[in-house]
Protein backbone atom coordinates (compact mmCIF):
# COMPACT_ATOMS: atom_id res chain seq x y z
CA UNK A 1 0.00 0.00 0.00
CA UNK A 2 1.51 3.34 -0.93
CA UNK A 3 1.48 6.36 1.30
CA UNK A 4 -1.48 8.08 -0.31
CA UNK A 5 -3.58 4.98 0.23
CA UNK A 6 -2.25 4.65 3.79
CA UNK A 7 -3.17 8.26 4.48
CA UNK A 8 -6.64 7.62 3.10
CA UNK A 9 -7.14 4.51 5.27
CA UNK A 10 -5.84 6.27 8.39
CA UNK A 11 -8.09 9.25 7.71
CA UNK A 12 -11.18 7.13 7.11
CA UNK A 13 -10.60 4.99 10.23
CA UNK A 14 -10.11 8.18 12.23
CA UNK A 15 -13.36 9.62 10.89
CA UNK A 16 -15.24 6.35 11.46
CA UNK A 17 -14.02 6.12 15.06
CA UNK A 18 -14.82 9.79 15.74
CA UNK A 19 -18.28 9.38 14.22
CA UNK A 20 -18.93 6.27 16.29
CA UNK A 21 -17.86 8.05 19.46
CA UNK A 22 -19.92 11.20 18.81
CA UNK A 23 -23.07 9.18 18.11
CA UNK A 24 -24.21 6.32 20.31
CA UNK A 25 -22.79 3.81 17.87
CA UNK A 26 -19.75 3.08 20.03
CA UNK A 27 -22.05 1.92 22.84
CA UNK A 28 -22.84 -1.21 20.83
CA UNK A 29 -19.24 -2.38 21.14
CA UNK A 30 -17.55 -0.91 24.20
CA UNK A 31 -18.29 0.70 27.54
CA UNK A 32 -19.19 4.36 27.84
CA UNK A 33 -15.93 5.02 29.72
CA UNK A 34 -13.92 4.41 26.57
CA UNK A 35 -15.50 7.38 24.77
CA UNK A 36 -12.82 10.04 25.51
CA UNK A 37 -10.07 7.61 24.56
CA UNK A 38 -11.84 6.78 21.29
CA UNK A 39 -12.13 10.48 20.47
CA UNK A 40 -8.42 11.02 21.11
CA UNK A 41 -7.52 7.94 19.03
CA UNK A 42 -9.72 9.10 16.14
CA UNK A 43 -8.18 12.56 16.24
CA UNK A 44 -4.63 11.18 16.34
CA UNK A 45 -5.33 8.97 13.32
CA UNK A 46 -6.68 11.95 11.36
CA UNK A 47 -3.66 14.07 12.31
CA UNK A 48 -1.36 11.19 11.27
CA UNK A 49 -3.13 11.03 7.90
CA UNK A 50 -2.84 14.78 7.37
CA UNK A 51 0.81 14.74 8.45
CA UNK A 52 1.50 11.92 5.98
CA UNK A 53 -0.01 13.92 3.12
CA UNK A 54 1.83 17.08 4.21
CA UNK A 55 5.26 15.47 4.36
CA UNK A 56 4.50 13.61 1.16
CA UNK A 57 3.80 16.86 -0.67
CA UNK A 58 6.93 18.41 0.80
CA UNK A 59 9.03 15.45 -0.31
CA UNK A 60 7.51 15.67 -3.80
CA UNK A 61 8.36 19.37 -4.00
CA UNK A 62 11.88 18.68 -2.81
CA UNK A 63 12.17 15.88 -5.37
CA UNK A 64 11.00 18.19 -8.15
CA UNK A 65 13.54 20.82 -7.16
CA UNK A 66 16.28 18.24 -7.12
CA UNK A 67 15.10 16.59 -10.35
CA UNK A 68 18.00 18.07 -12.27
CA UNK A 69 20.19 15.39 -10.72
CA UNK A 70 18.42 12.88 -12.88
CA UNK A 71 17.72 9.39 -11.55
CA UNK A 72 18.46 10.15 -7.89
CA UNK A 73 16.93 7.88 -5.31
CA UNK A 74 14.94 10.89 -4.14
CA UNK A 75 12.78 10.40 -7.21
CA UNK A 76 11.14 7.53 -5.33
CA UNK A 77 10.54 9.48 -2.21
CA UNK A 78 6.80 9.76 -2.49
CA UNK A 79 6.20 6.08 -2.96
CA UNK A 80 9.32 4.24 -1.93
CA UNK A 81 8.12 2.77 1.33
CA UNK A 82 5.28 0.28 1.12
CA UNK A 83 3.64 -1.33 4.09
CA UNK A 84 3.17 -5.11 4.07
CA UNK A 85 0.02 -6.40 2.49
CA UNK A 86 -1.48 -7.18 5.89
CA UNK A 87 -2.20 -3.45 6.18
CA UNK A 88 -4.96 -3.93 3.65
CA UNK A 89 -6.91 -5.81 6.31
CA UNK A 90 -7.47 -2.50 8.09
CA UNK A 91 -10.04 -1.80 5.41
CA UNK A 92 -12.26 -4.55 6.88
CA UNK A 93 -13.09 -3.00 10.28
CA UNK A 94 -13.42 0.32 8.47
CA UNK A 95 -16.07 -1.05 6.12
CA UNK A 96 -17.76 -2.97 8.92
CA UNK A 97 -17.97 0.15 11.06
CA UNK A 98 -19.06 2.59 8.34
CA UNK A 99 -21.31 0.48 6.15
CA UNK A 100 -22.64 -2.37 8.26
CA UNK A 101 -22.35 -1.14 11.87
CA UNK A 102 -23.24 -4.58 13.32
CA UNK A 103 -25.77 -4.54 16.16
CA UNK A 104 -25.04 -5.20 19.81
CA UNK A 105 -25.18 -8.95 20.57
CA UNK A 106 -28.77 -10.16 20.59
CA UNK A 107 -30.77 -13.31 21.16
CA UNK A 108 -28.47 -15.52 19.08
CA UNK A 109 -25.43 -14.77 21.25
CA UNK A 110 -27.54 -14.76 24.41
CA UNK A 111 -28.83 -18.29 23.90
CA UNK A 112 -25.42 -19.69 23.00
CA UNK A 113 -23.95 -18.49 26.30
CA UNK A 114 -24.85 -19.41 29.85
CA UNK A 115 -26.53 -16.90 32.13
CA UNK A 116 -23.94 -14.74 33.92
CA UNK A 117 -25.58 -14.65 37.31
CA UNK A 118 -23.25 -14.52 40.27
CA UNK A 119 -24.12 -14.57 43.97
CA UNK A 120 -23.63 -11.17 45.60
CA UNK A 121 -22.71 -10.80 49.27
CA UNK A 122 -25.58 -8.37 49.90
CA UNK A 123 -28.43 -6.75 48.04
CA UNK A 124 -29.24 -3.10 48.80
CA UNK A 125 -32.72 -2.23 50.08
CA UNK A 126 -35.31 -1.32 47.47
CA UNK A 127 -37.44 1.86 47.49
CA UNK A 128 -40.86 1.21 49.03
CA UNK A 129 -44.23 1.83 47.41
CA UNK A 130 -45.42 2.02 43.81
CA UNK A 131 -44.14 0.08 40.82
CA UNK A 132 -40.58 -1.14 41.15
CA UNK A 133 -38.28 -0.54 38.14
CA UNK A 134 -35.53 -3.16 38.10
CA UNK A 135 -32.80 -4.18 35.73
CA UNK A 136 -33.05 -7.73 34.42
CA UNK A 137 -29.79 -8.61 36.18
CA UNK A 138 -30.95 -7.03 39.44
CA UNK A 139 -34.22 -8.97 39.39
CA UNK A 140 -32.55 -12.22 38.45
CA UNK A 141 -29.87 -11.80 41.15
CA UNK A 142 -32.42 -11.08 43.89
CA UNK A 143 -34.71 -13.84 42.74
CA UNK A 144 -31.95 -16.44 42.53
CA UNK A 145 -29.73 -15.55 45.48
CA UNK A 146 -31.87 -13.42 47.80
CA UNK A 147 -34.86 -15.74 47.75
CA UNK A 148 -36.97 -12.94 46.28
CA UNK A 149 -36.91 -11.01 49.57
CA UNK A 150 -38.27 -7.47 48.94
CA UNK A 151 -39.71 -8.66 45.63
CA UNK A 152 -42.80 -10.47 46.85
CA UNK A 153 -46.09 -8.61 46.49
CA UNK A 154 -44.53 -5.86 44.39
CA UNK A 155 -45.44 -4.70 40.91
CA UNK A 156 -42.19 -4.88 38.95
CA UNK A 157 -41.22 -3.38 35.60
CA UNK A 158 -38.26 -4.52 33.49
CA UNK A 159 -36.95 -3.85 30.00
CA UNK A 160 -35.02 -6.30 27.87
CA UNK A 161 -35.05 -8.19 24.60
CA UNK A 162 -36.78 -11.46 23.82
CA UNK A 163 -34.78 -14.62 23.32
CA UNK A 164 -36.30 -18.06 22.76
CA UNK A 165 -34.63 -21.25 23.96
CA UNK A 166 -34.61 -24.46 21.92
CA UNK A 167 -38.07 -25.39 23.10
CA UNK A 168 -39.37 -21.95 22.17
CA UNK A 169 -39.81 -20.76 25.77
CA UNK A 170 -39.55 -16.95 25.96
CA UNK A 171 -36.84 -15.25 28.03
CA UNK A 172 -36.33 -11.60 28.83
CA UNK A 173 -32.63 -10.99 28.34
CA UNK A 174 -30.03 -8.27 28.79
CA UNK A 175 -26.36 -8.53 27.96
CA UNK A 176 -23.81 -7.37 30.52
CA UNK A 177 -20.55 -5.88 29.45
CA UNK A 178 -17.22 -5.99 31.23
CA UNK A 179 -15.13 -4.33 28.61
CA UNK A 180 -16.23 -4.84 25.04
CA UNK A 181 -18.90 -6.79 23.18
CA UNK A 182 -16.45 -9.69 22.82
CA UNK A 183 -16.97 -10.53 26.49
CA UNK A 184 -20.70 -9.72 26.61
CA UNK A 185 -22.67 -12.19 28.72
CA UNK A 186 -26.41 -12.64 29.01
CA UNK A 187 -28.63 -12.50 32.06
CA UNK A 188 -31.85 -14.39 31.44
CA UNK A 189 -35.27 -14.33 33.08
CA UNK A 190 -37.88 -16.82 31.93
CA UNK A 191 -41.24 -15.21 31.18
CA UNK A 192 -44.53 -16.78 32.16
CA UNK A 193 -48.07 -15.46 32.57
CA UNK A 194 -49.93 -13.25 30.10
CA UNK A 195 -47.72 -12.92 27.08
CA UNK A 196 -48.46 -11.84 23.50
CA UNK A 197 -49.32 -14.90 21.35
CA UNK A 198 -46.23 -14.56 19.19
CA UNK A 199 -42.93 -13.24 20.43
CA UNK A 200 -40.22 -12.46 17.89
CA UNK A 201 -36.65 -12.91 19.12
CA UNK A 202 -34.72 -9.63 19.54
CA UNK A 203 -37.82 -7.48 20.00
CA UNK A 204 -37.51 -5.17 22.98
CA UNK A 205 -40.23 -5.47 25.61
CA UNK A 206 -41.21 -3.61 28.71
CA UNK A 207 -42.82 -6.19 30.95
CA UNK A 208 -44.87 -5.49 34.06
CA UNK A 209 -45.62 -8.29 36.48
CA UNK A 210 -44.75 -9.99 39.74
CA UNK A 211 -42.06 -12.17 41.27
CA UNK A 212 -42.30 -15.90 40.74
CA UNK A 213 -40.44 -18.40 42.90
CA UNK A 214 -40.14 -20.90 40.05
CA UNK A 215 -36.67 -21.49 38.62
CA UNK A 216 -35.14 -23.20 35.64
CA UNK A 217 -31.61 -24.37 34.96
CA UNK A 218 -29.61 -22.86 32.12
CA UNK A 219 -28.83 -25.74 29.73
CA UNK A 220 -25.49 -24.16 28.80
CA UNK A 221 -23.81 -23.62 32.17
CA UNK A 222 -26.30 -24.86 34.72
CA UNK A 223 -26.88 -21.33 36.02
CA UNK A 224 -30.13 -20.26 37.66
CA UNK A 225 -32.85 -18.77 35.45
CA UNK A 226 -35.61 -17.32 37.63
CA UNK A 227 -39.18 -16.92 36.39
CA UNK A 228 -41.21 -13.73 36.13
CA UNK A 229 -45.01 -13.59 36.03
CA UNK A 230 -46.03 -11.14 33.33
CA UNK A 231 -49.30 -9.21 33.52
CA UNK A 232 -48.54 -6.74 30.74
CA UNK A 233 -45.95 -6.73 27.96
CA UNK A 234 -45.46 -3.78 25.62
CA UNK A 235 -42.96 -3.46 22.79
CA UNK A 236 -40.53 -0.57 23.27
CA UNK A 237 -37.67 1.01 21.36
CA UNK A 238 -34.23 -0.41 22.20
CA UNK A 239 -32.35 1.81 24.67
CA UNK A 240 -29.30 3.69 23.38
CA UNK A 241 -27.11 1.57 25.64
CA UNK A 242 -28.36 -1.97 25.21
CA UNK A 243 -26.10 -3.36 27.91
CA UNK A 244 -26.77 -3.51 31.60
CA UNK A 245 -24.46 -3.01 34.56
Amino acid at each position, binding site marked *: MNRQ*AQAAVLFLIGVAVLRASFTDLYLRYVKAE*LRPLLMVAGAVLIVAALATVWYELRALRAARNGAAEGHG*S*SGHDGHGHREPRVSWLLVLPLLALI*LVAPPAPGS*YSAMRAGTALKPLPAFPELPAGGTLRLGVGDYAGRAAYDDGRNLRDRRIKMTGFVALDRGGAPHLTRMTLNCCA*ADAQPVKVRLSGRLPPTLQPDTWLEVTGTYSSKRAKDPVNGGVIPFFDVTRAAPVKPPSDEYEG
Partner: protein
Amino acid sequence: MPTSETAPPRADGGGQGGDHGGDHGAAEARGAEGQGSRRVSSSLVLTVVLLLVMLLQAPIGRALSAPLMQSWMTVFVAIVVQALPFLVLGVLLSAAIAVFVPASFFVRALPKRPALAVPVAGVGGVVLPGCECASVPVAGALVRRGVTPAAALTFLLSAPAINPIVLTATAVAFPGDPEMVLARFVASLLVACAMGWLWQRLGRTEWMRPPARPAFDGLGKGAAFWGSVRHDVMHAGGFLVVGAMAAATLKSVVPESWLQAAAGNPVVSVLVLGLLAVLLSICSEADAFVAASLTQFSLTARLAFLVVGPMIDLKLFAMQAATFGRGFALRFAPVTFALAIAVSALAGAVLL
Protein backbone atom coordinates in the same frame (compact mmCIF):
# COMPACT_ATOMS: atom_id res chain seq x y z
CA MET B 1 4.16 -10.27 3.53
CA PRO B 2 6.59 -8.19 5.55
CA THR B 3 9.26 -8.65 2.91
CA SER B 4 7.36 -6.45 0.51
CA GLU B 5 8.69 -3.46 2.40
CA THR B 6 11.16 -1.55 0.37
CA ALA B 7 14.05 0.67 1.15
CA PRO B 8 13.49 3.81 3.15
CA PRO B 9 13.37 7.11 1.37
CA ARG B 10 16.25 9.38 2.26
CA ALA B 11 15.80 13.10 2.29
CA ASP B 12 19.52 13.54 1.75
CA GLY B 13 19.42 11.30 -1.30
CA GLY B 14 22.26 9.33 0.24
CA GLY B 15 21.09 6.09 -1.29
CA GLN B 16 20.32 2.89 0.59
CA GLY B 17 21.82 2.10 3.91
CA GLY B 18 20.72 2.35 7.49
CA ASP B 19 19.10 -0.88 8.51
CA HIS B 20 19.84 -2.61 5.26
CA GLY B 21 22.93 -4.41 4.15
CA GLY B 22 24.30 -3.16 0.84
CA ASP B 23 23.12 -6.04 -1.38
CA HIS B 24 19.82 -6.29 0.36
CA GLY B 25 19.14 -2.60 -0.10
CA ALA B 26 20.08 -2.67 -3.76
CA ALA B 27 17.82 -5.63 -4.40
CA GLU B 28 14.97 -3.86 -2.69
CA ALA B 29 15.58 -0.72 -4.71
CA ARG B 30 15.33 -2.78 -7.89
CA GLY B 31 12.16 -4.34 -6.56
CA ALA B 32 10.68 -0.91 -5.98
CA GLU B 33 11.47 0.12 -9.52
CA GLY B 34 10.11 -3.12 -10.91
CA GLN B 35 6.85 -2.48 -9.12
CA GLY B 36 6.55 0.88 -10.79
CA SER B 37 3.21 0.20 -12.41
CA ARG B 38 1.75 -1.37 -9.26
CA ARG B 39 2.84 1.55 -7.15
CA VAL B 40 0.30 3.84 -8.70
CA SER B 41 -2.41 1.29 -8.34
CA SER B 42 -2.77 0.84 -4.57
CA SER B 43 -4.62 4.17 -4.22
CA LEU B 44 -6.68 3.15 -7.21
CA VAL B 45 -7.41 -0.29 -5.77
CA LEU B 46 -8.52 1.32 -2.51
CA THR B 47 -10.84 3.71 -4.35
CA VAL B 48 -12.32 0.91 -6.42
CA VAL B 49 -12.83 -1.30 -3.35
CA LEU B 50 -14.56 1.49 -1.45
CA LEU B 51 -16.77 2.40 -4.42
CA LEU B 52 -17.74 -1.22 -5.09
CA VAL B 53 -18.67 -1.83 -1.49
CA MET B 54 -20.76 1.37 -1.44
CA LEU B 55 -22.59 0.32 -4.59
CA LEU B 56 -23.16 -3.24 -3.41
CA GLN B 57 -24.10 -2.23 0.12
CA ALA B 58 -27.60 -3.72 -0.05
CA PRO B 59 -26.66 -7.23 -1.28
CA ILE B 60 -23.65 -7.34 1.05
CA GLY B 61 -25.88 -6.31 3.95
CA ARG B 62 -28.30 -9.13 3.12
CA ALA B 63 -25.50 -11.66 2.95
CA LEU B 64 -24.26 -10.59 6.38
CA SER B 65 -27.64 -10.60 8.10
CA ALA B 66 -27.46 -14.24 9.25
CA PRO B 67 -27.22 -14.30 13.07
CA LEU B 68 -23.89 -16.15 13.01
CA MET B 69 -22.37 -13.57 10.64
CA GLN B 70 -23.76 -10.70 12.68
CA SER B 71 -22.43 -12.01 15.94
CA TRP B 72 -19.06 -12.58 14.27
CA MET B 73 -18.98 -9.02 12.98
CA THR B 74 -20.03 -7.55 16.31
CA VAL B 75 -17.24 -9.34 18.16
CA PHE B 76 -14.76 -8.46 15.42
CA VAL B 77 -15.62 -4.75 15.40
CA ALA B 78 -15.78 -4.67 19.21
CA ILE B 79 -12.25 -6.08 19.60
CA VAL B 80 -10.83 -3.66 17.06
CA VAL B 81 -12.64 -0.64 18.55
CA GLN B 82 -11.63 -1.66 22.08
CA ALA B 83 -7.98 -2.14 21.18
CA LEU B 84 -7.56 0.83 18.87
CA PRO B 85 -7.12 3.56 21.53
CA PHE B 86 -4.50 1.46 23.31
CA LEU B 87 -2.76 0.65 20.05
CA VAL B 88 -2.65 4.38 19.22
CA LEU B 89 -1.31 5.13 22.70
CA GLY B 90 1.43 2.53 22.33
CA VAL B 91 2.30 3.73 18.85
CA LEU B 92 2.58 7.36 20.03
CA LEU B 93 4.80 6.27 22.93
CA SER B 94 6.93 4.14 20.66
CA ALA B 95 7.33 7.02 18.18
CA ALA B 96 8.23 9.36 21.03
CA ILE B 97 10.85 6.91 22.31
CA ALA B 98 12.26 6.50 18.83
CA VAL B 99 12.43 10.20 18.03
CA PHE B 100 12.74 12.21 21.23
CA VAL B 101 14.49 9.94 23.75
CA PRO B 102 18.20 9.64 23.03
CA ALA B 103 19.56 6.08 23.03
CA SER B 104 21.99 7.08 25.79
CA PHE B 105 19.05 7.49 28.19
CA PHE B 106 18.34 3.76 28.26
CA VAL B 107 22.00 2.94 28.59
CA ARG B 108 22.08 5.06 31.75
CA ALA B 109 18.68 4.01 33.07
CA LEU B 110 19.27 0.25 32.91
CA PRO B 111 21.98 -1.62 34.78
CA LYS B 112 24.97 -2.55 32.61
CA ARG B 113 24.70 -6.25 33.31
CA PRO B 114 21.83 -7.82 31.34
CA ALA B 115 21.11 -10.20 34.23
CA LEU B 116 20.29 -7.16 36.38
CA ALA B 117 18.65 -5.17 33.58
CA VAL B 118 16.02 -7.91 33.20
CA PRO B 119 14.31 -7.51 36.60
CA VAL B 120 14.60 -3.71 36.40
CA ALA B 121 12.83 -3.77 33.02
CA GLY B 122 10.26 -6.19 34.42
CA VAL B 123 9.35 -3.91 37.29
CA GLY B 124 9.54 -0.98 34.84
CA GLY B 125 6.54 -2.52 33.11
CA VAL B 126 4.45 -0.95 35.86
CA VAL B 127 4.70 2.44 34.17
CA LEU B 128 3.04 1.57 30.85
CA PRO B 129 -0.66 1.96 31.56
CA GLY B 130 -2.04 -0.02 28.68
CA CYS B 131 -2.67 -3.46 27.35
CA GLU B 132 -0.52 -5.75 25.22
CA CYS B 133 -1.36 -3.87 22.03
CA ALA B 134 0.64 -0.94 23.41
CA SER B 135 3.59 -2.91 24.69
CA VAL B 136 4.59 -4.61 21.42
CA PRO B 137 5.46 -1.41 19.51
CA VAL B 138 7.12 0.04 22.62
CA ALA B 139 9.30 -3.06 23.10
CA GLY B 140 10.21 -2.93 19.40
CA ALA B 141 11.28 0.69 19.80
CA LEU B 142 13.35 -0.21 22.87
CA VAL B 143 15.27 -2.88 20.95
CA ARG B 144 15.96 -0.46 18.11
CA ARG B 145 17.15 2.07 20.69
CA GLY B 146 19.82 -0.35 21.79
CA VAL B 147 18.20 -1.77 24.92
CA THR B 148 19.44 -5.31 25.46
CA PRO B 149 16.80 -7.63 23.92
CA ALA B 150 16.48 -9.69 27.11
CA ALA B 151 15.40 -6.59 29.03
CA ALA B 152 13.09 -5.37 26.26
CA LEU B 153 11.40 -8.78 26.09
CA THR B 154 10.91 -8.84 29.84
CA PHE B 155 9.30 -5.43 29.54
CA LEU B 156 7.16 -6.68 26.67
CA LEU B 157 5.80 -9.52 28.82
CA SER B 158 5.44 -7.76 32.14
CA ALA B 159 4.03 -4.35 31.12
CA PRO B 160 0.57 -5.49 29.99
CA ALA B 161 0.07 -7.71 33.03
CA ILE B 162 1.30 -5.73 36.02
CA ASN B 163 0.44 -2.10 35.30
CA PRO B 164 -1.88 -0.35 37.79
CA ILE B 165 -4.90 -0.27 35.45
CA VAL B 166 -4.83 -4.00 34.85
CA LEU B 167 -4.25 -4.81 38.53
CA THR B 168 -7.13 -2.51 39.51
CA ALA B 169 -9.37 -4.22 36.97
CA THR B 170 -8.36 -7.57 38.45
CA ALA B 171 -9.20 -6.38 41.97
CA VAL B 172 -12.60 -5.13 40.77
CA ALA B 173 -13.32 -8.36 38.93
CA PHE B 174 -12.48 -10.58 41.93
CA PRO B 175 -13.99 -8.65 44.84
CA GLY B 176 -14.02 -11.74 47.04
CA ASP B 177 -10.47 -12.91 46.28
CA PRO B 178 -7.94 -10.08 46.75
CA GLU B 179 -5.09 -12.64 46.71
CA MET B 180 -5.82 -13.01 42.99
CA VAL B 181 -4.24 -9.59 42.37
CA LEU B 182 -1.08 -10.58 44.25
CA ALA B 183 -0.92 -13.95 42.50
CA ARG B 184 -1.29 -12.30 39.09
CA PHE B 185 1.41 -9.72 39.84
CA VAL B 186 3.90 -12.24 41.21
CA ALA B 187 3.31 -14.92 38.57
CA SER B 188 3.45 -12.46 35.64
CA LEU B 189 6.63 -10.78 36.90
CA LEU B 190 8.26 -14.18 37.48
CA VAL B 191 7.46 -15.42 33.98
CA ALA B 192 8.59 -12.14 32.40
CA CYS B 193 11.95 -12.18 34.22
CA ALA B 194 12.47 -15.89 33.59
CA MET B 195 11.87 -15.36 29.88
CA GLY B 196 14.33 -12.46 29.89
CA TRP B 197 17.05 -14.52 31.56
CA LEU B 198 16.28 -17.47 29.31
CA TRP B 199 16.69 -15.27 26.24
CA GLN B 200 19.95 -13.91 27.59
CA ARG B 201 21.24 -17.48 28.10
CA LEU B 202 19.90 -19.24 25.03
CA GLY B 203 18.64 -16.57 22.69
CA ARG B 204 20.44 -15.89 19.46
CA THR B 205 20.44 -12.53 17.76
CA GLU B 206 19.78 -14.06 14.38
CA TRP B 207 16.42 -15.39 15.57
CA MET B 208 15.31 -11.85 16.12
CA ARG B 209 15.04 -10.46 12.65
CA PRO B 210 12.78 -7.48 12.60
CA PRO B 211 11.38 -6.86 9.13
CA ALA B 212 12.95 -3.94 7.32
CA ARG B 213 11.66 -0.73 8.69
CA PRO B 214 11.90 2.73 7.24
CA ALA B 215 14.80 4.65 8.75
CA PHE B 216 13.48 7.97 9.84
CA ASP B 217 16.76 9.62 10.75
CA GLY B 218 17.85 12.24 8.29
CA LEU B 219 14.30 13.55 8.29
CA GLY B 220 13.04 16.31 10.55
CA LYS B 221 11.76 15.33 13.97
CA GLY B 222 8.13 15.93 12.97
CA ALA B 223 8.43 13.87 9.81
CA ALA B 224 10.18 11.09 11.71
CA PHE B 225 7.55 11.08 14.48
CA TRP B 226 4.52 10.95 12.20
CA GLY B 227 6.25 8.58 9.82
CA SER B 228 6.77 6.18 12.70
CA VAL B 229 3.16 6.58 13.89
CA ARG B 230 1.82 5.89 10.40
CA HIS B 231 4.06 2.88 9.91
CA ASP B 232 3.21 1.31 13.26
CA VAL B 233 -0.53 1.85 12.99
CA MET B 234 -0.68 0.32 9.51
CA HIS B 235 1.57 -2.53 10.52
CA ALA B 236 0.41 -3.49 14.00
CA GLY B 237 -3.15 -2.52 13.08
CA GLY B 238 -3.19 -5.03 10.25
CA PHE B 239 -2.11 -7.80 12.62
CA LEU B 240 -4.61 -6.67 15.23
CA VAL B 241 -7.27 -7.26 12.58
CA VAL B 242 -5.94 -10.81 12.03
CA GLY B 243 -6.18 -11.52 15.77
CA ALA B 244 -9.63 -9.99 16.02
CA MET B 245 -10.86 -12.17 13.17
CA ALA B 246 -9.50 -15.31 14.85
CA ALA B 247 -11.02 -14.43 18.21
CA ALA B 248 -14.38 -13.54 16.65
CA THR B 249 -14.44 -16.86 14.82
CA LEU B 250 -13.73 -18.78 18.01
CA LYS B 251 -16.27 -16.82 20.03
CA SER B 252 -19.09 -17.27 17.57
CA VAL B 253 -18.36 -20.84 16.47
CA VAL B 254 -17.19 -22.87 19.51
CA PRO B 255 -20.09 -23.72 21.84
CA GLU B 256 -19.71 -22.79 25.48
CA SER B 257 -20.76 -26.24 26.64
CA TRP B 258 -17.36 -27.59 25.55
CA LEU B 259 -15.79 -25.45 28.25
CA GLN B 260 -18.10 -26.95 30.85
CA ALA B 261 -16.78 -30.41 30.14
CA ALA B 262 -13.18 -29.24 30.65
CA ALA B 263 -13.72 -27.52 33.99
CA GLY B 264 -14.05 -30.78 35.91
CA ASN B 265 -10.42 -31.94 35.81
CA PRO B 266 -7.95 -29.67 37.70
CA VAL B 267 -5.00 -30.30 35.35
CA VAL B 268 -7.02 -30.13 32.16
CA SER B 269 -8.80 -26.98 33.33
CA VAL B 270 -5.50 -25.07 33.78
CA LEU B 271 -4.38 -26.08 30.30
CA VAL B 272 -7.75 -25.35 28.74
CA LEU B 273 -8.01 -21.86 30.21
CA GLY B 274 -4.41 -21.13 29.18
CA LEU B 275 -5.26 -22.22 25.67
CA LEU B 276 -8.49 -20.26 25.75
CA ALA B 277 -6.56 -17.11 26.71
CA VAL B 278 -4.37 -17.64 23.64
CA LEU B 279 -7.33 -18.15 21.33
CA LEU B 280 -9.62 -15.44 22.67
CA SER B 281 -6.96 -12.71 22.49
CA ILE B 282 -8.76 -10.49 24.97
CA CYS B 283 -7.17 -7.21 25.97
CA SER B 284 -5.38 -7.50 29.32
CA GLU B 285 -7.50 -4.70 30.74
CA ALA B 286 -10.59 -6.78 30.15
CA ASP B 287 -9.45 -10.34 30.68
CA ALA B 288 -9.94 -10.26 34.45
CA PHE B 289 -13.66 -9.76 33.97
CA VAL B 290 -13.87 -12.62 31.52
CA ALA B 291 -11.89 -14.82 33.90
CA ALA B 292 -14.20 -13.85 36.75
CA SER B 293 -17.18 -14.96 34.68
CA LEU B 294 -15.71 -18.45 34.13
CA THR B 295 -17.00 -19.43 37.55
CA GLN B 296 -17.03 -23.15 36.84
CA PHE B 297 -13.21 -23.16 36.75
CA SER B 298 -10.86 -23.17 39.75
CA LEU B 299 -9.05 -19.97 40.80
CA THR B 300 -5.73 -21.49 39.69
CA ALA B 301 -7.09 -22.20 36.23
CA ARG B 302 -8.36 -18.64 36.02
CA LEU B 303 -4.97 -17.36 37.18
CA ALA B 304 -3.42 -19.25 34.26
CA PHE B 305 -5.87 -17.44 31.98
CA LEU B 306 -4.75 -14.09 33.41
CA VAL B 307 -1.02 -14.83 33.23
CA VAL B 308 -1.00 -16.38 29.74
CA GLY B 309 -3.37 -13.90 28.05
CA PRO B 310 -1.27 -10.72 28.24
CA MET B 311 1.91 -12.59 27.28
CA ILE B 312 0.87 -14.67 24.33
CA ASP B 313 -2.30 -14.85 22.29
CA LEU B 314 -3.24 -14.99 18.62
CA LYS B 315 -3.13 -11.28 17.95
CA LEU B 316 0.03 -10.85 20.06
CA PHE B 317 1.72 -13.65 18.15
CA ALA B 318 0.86 -11.92 14.88
CA MET B 319 2.07 -8.59 16.23
CA GLN B 320 5.28 -10.09 17.68
CA ALA B 321 6.02 -11.81 14.38
CA ALA B 322 5.54 -8.48 12.65
CA THR B 323 7.80 -6.60 15.06
CA PHE B 324 10.58 -9.11 15.75
CA GLY B 325 10.31 -11.55 12.86
CA ARG B 326 8.52 -14.87 12.43
CA GLY B 327 11.51 -17.01 13.41
CA PHE B 328 11.58 -15.25 16.75
CA ALA B 329 7.85 -15.51 17.40
CA LEU B 330 7.77 -19.24 16.57
CA ARG B 331 10.40 -19.95 19.25
CA PHE B 332 9.35 -17.37 21.80
CA ALA B 333 5.61 -18.06 21.91
CA PRO B 334 5.59 -21.78 22.88
CA VAL B 335 8.22 -21.32 25.59
CA THR B 336 6.33 -18.35 27.02
CA PHE B 337 3.14 -20.39 27.03
CA ALA B 338 4.69 -23.40 28.78
CA LEU B 339 6.45 -21.25 31.37
CA ALA B 340 3.34 -19.15 32.04
CA ILE B 341 1.25 -22.29 32.60
CA ALA B 342 3.85 -23.82 34.93
CA VAL B 343 4.35 -20.66 36.98
CA SER B 344 0.62 -20.02 37.34
CA ALA B 345 0.05 -23.56 38.54
CA LEU B 346 2.83 -23.04 41.09
CA ALA B 347 1.63 -19.59 42.15
CA GLY B 348 -1.91 -20.92 42.38
CA ALA B 349 -0.81 -23.73 44.66
CA VAL B 350 1.14 -21.38 46.95
CA LEU B 351 -0.95 -18.20 46.96
CA LEU B 352 -4.54 -19.15 46.20
